[in-house]
Structure formats: structure tokens, C-alpha cells
């Protein structure tokens, strides 16, 4: 899947560039983007180390497990594959909370930590689990309590009421989250059905 998307983006990009006569721009973009990727990663390095270290303490002290137990009744139905008392759920919640509070810098390291915990539960290490898909859908559609960047952008643009979009953002986010969770549940059910049928045939 990823292979085809990646190939598609590049093939379409180069084909359109040839038609548009934008070969030089495209070449420049390819080279510059690879530099940007490394810059982004290096920029992430410090904050990643900080949160990884802090999460290490949280784990050793049993805090993550306790958090997992606490949110189990709430999030259990979204992640039926995570066993009781596993720290994965705790890490997932910490990432979702960081997203919710708009702690953008903390969210990524915590999310990767959560993916690492989910990977420990995965029997097929290069294929993602239902729990991982659900986690990423929640993560990419999550609500932000205060969309600070947009408010800043709006007040810089001279808005008479920069914060008026908070409510519309909340409502649109909730719609996205509910749709995403439903889609993930249905798609995972479909996949399971298909696998079961295939097993029956052979």
C-alpha cells in the first residue's frame, strides 16, 4: 500500500512537472525536502530525549500502569487488543492528553513511546495491529483544547474575535473523531471477516 502511494506521488509529480515545464523546481524540491526531513528530525532530537527519559521514570514508578488501569473502562472498547494492566494504554492516553492540551512538542515523543508499547504486543512485527490503527486515527483527528497557532494567526491578521473559531474547531474535530473511529472499527471488522473466509476456503 505505502509502496504504491509513494510511487504514485513521485510518478505523478514528475510526470506533471514535465508537462508543466517545472523540472528544475521539482529537482530543487526533492533535494531541499531531504534536507528539511533531516532538519526536522534533528529538531526533534532534544525533546524526544527529554520525554523518553521522563517516560522512563513514569514507567519504572508504575505511574503508566496505574494510568492504564484508570482509563481502561473509558478506552477499553477502542483497544480490545490491549491486555489489562499493560502500560501501552497508559502511553496512549498520555499522547492523547498531550494532543488535547496542545503540547505539540510532547505529543510526538509520547506517541512514539505508545507505538513502541503497542509494538511489544504485536506478533507480526512489520504489520500494524488494530490497536495501532485506532491509535493513529484518534491521534490524527484529536481535539485540541486551545488551537493556539490558529488563534495567534487570526489575531495577527487583525481579527475582531480571534477565538470565535474554537467552538467550530471543537465540533468539526468531534465529527472527524467519531467518523474515524467508526471507519477504523468497520475496516478492522471487514479485514477479520476476509481472513476468516480465506481460512475456511483452504
Amino acid at each position, binding site marked *: 500500500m505505502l509502496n504504491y502511494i509513494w510511487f504514485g506521488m513521485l510518478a505523478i509529480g514528475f510526470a506533471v512537472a514535465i508537462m508543466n515545464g517545472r523540472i528544475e523546481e521539482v529537482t530543487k524540491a526533492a533535494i531541499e525536502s531531504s534536507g528539511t526531513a533531516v532538519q526536522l528530525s534533528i529538531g526533534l532530537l532534544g525533546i524526544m530525549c527529554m520525554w523518553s527519559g521522563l517516560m522512563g*521514570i513514569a514507567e519504572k514508578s508504575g505511574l503508566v500502569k496505574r494510568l492504564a488501569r484508570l482509563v481502561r473502562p473509558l478506552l477499553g472498547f477502542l483497544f480490545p487488543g490491549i491486555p489489562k494492566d499493560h502500560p501501552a494504554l497508559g502511553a496512549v492516553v498520555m499522547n492523547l492528553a498531550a494532543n488535547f492540551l496542545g503540547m505539540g512538542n510532547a505529543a510526538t515523543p509520547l506517541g512514539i513511546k505508545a507505538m513502541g508499547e503497542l509494538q511489544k504486543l504485536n506478533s507480526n512485527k512489520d504489520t500494524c495491529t488494530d490497536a495501532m490503527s485506532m491509535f493513529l486515527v484518534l491521534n490524527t483527528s484529536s481535539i485540541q483544547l486551545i488551537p493556539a497557532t490558529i488563534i495567534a494567526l487570526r489575531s495577527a491578521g487583525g481579527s475582531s474575535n480571534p477565538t470565535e473559531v474554537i467552538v467550530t474547531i471543537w465540533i468539526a474535530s468531534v465529527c472527524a473523531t467519531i467518523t474515524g473511529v467508526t471507519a477504523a472499527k468497520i475496516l478492522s471488522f471487514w479485514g477479520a471477516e476476509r481472513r476468516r473466509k480465506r481460512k475456511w476456503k483452504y
Partner: protein
Amino acid sequence: MEVLKLLSAYAIPAVFLVILSAGIINDVKVYDVFVEGAKEGISTVARIIPSLVGLLVAVGVFRASGALDLIIYAVRPAAELLGIPSEALPLAFLRPISGSASLALVSDIIKTYGPDSFTGRLASTMMGSTETIFYTLAVYFGAVGIKNIRYTLAAALIADCAGVLASVWICTALFGSYVK
């Protein structure tokens, strides 16, 4: 509003204090464990770099080629039917693939049409309620070495579409419809 701002400001110091206190109470050698954990951060970033290079190069080429303009041209009639103004349409397509480019686009829309115009409010809402899906998937899956992502991208894109449509719907309901 003030309470919300305060909550955001205190979030990180509070997390620090809670985790460190829990560590000390449970006899964890906090500094040693921190340093040990921080080491993991380095290898994580090293694992992310290749997938991020792959993604950003593809996005960069795709954007610079002008392919996005073609797609937008093709779907414009359908978008008009759904009530998406053509000024905000590029944002709907740019948002899942590039966070920085879509932020630049929003600030451009705000400058051109004004933050309190329908287009300005819609763009703000769309920006705030959706995420850079491709980046998140590349980083998170890259970090743990997942190659087969199954239906994750499909589900995330469905959520993204729902976010865009919901933005149009709620902005029309609250701020009045889009008039040319």
C-alpha cells in the same frame, strides 16, 4: 477562556512534577533512569529519519510539480456543490500532506480575505480540526518499523474528509453561507 489558557500553561510543569514525585516515592533513581530513557530518544530519531526523508521528498516533488492544482481543478465543481469555497479548497488537499505548507496557506487566506470573512473562518476551522496525516503515519510507523499499515491511512483520510465537511457545515450554520 482564561481557565483554559492557564491549564495549557501549567500542563507541562505539572506532568514533570507528578512523574518526578511518583519516581522518588517509589524509590526510582530518577536521574539514572532519565538518562537511560533519554538514550532511547536518539535511536528513535535515527529510525525516523529515513521514513521522513522518503515522505518529504515525495510531498516536495508532488507540490512543486503543480499536480495539486490539477486535482483541485478537477474536483472544484463537486466541491462547489458541497459548499466549499474554491479559495479554501487547496487547503483541504494540502492539509493531510504538509503541515507547514498548509499553515502558510491559512495565513495567506487570512491576509487576502480577512480573518473574519467566511473563507477566513472556514480555513481556520479546517486547519484546527484536521491533522498532517502523512507526516504522523510516517513518523509513528517509521519509529517502530511497521511496513504494512493495512487500513490505517484509509480510516485517517475518512476522518479527515469528515473534518473538512463538518467544518463547512458548522461554519455555514454559525457564520452564514458563502456568498461570492
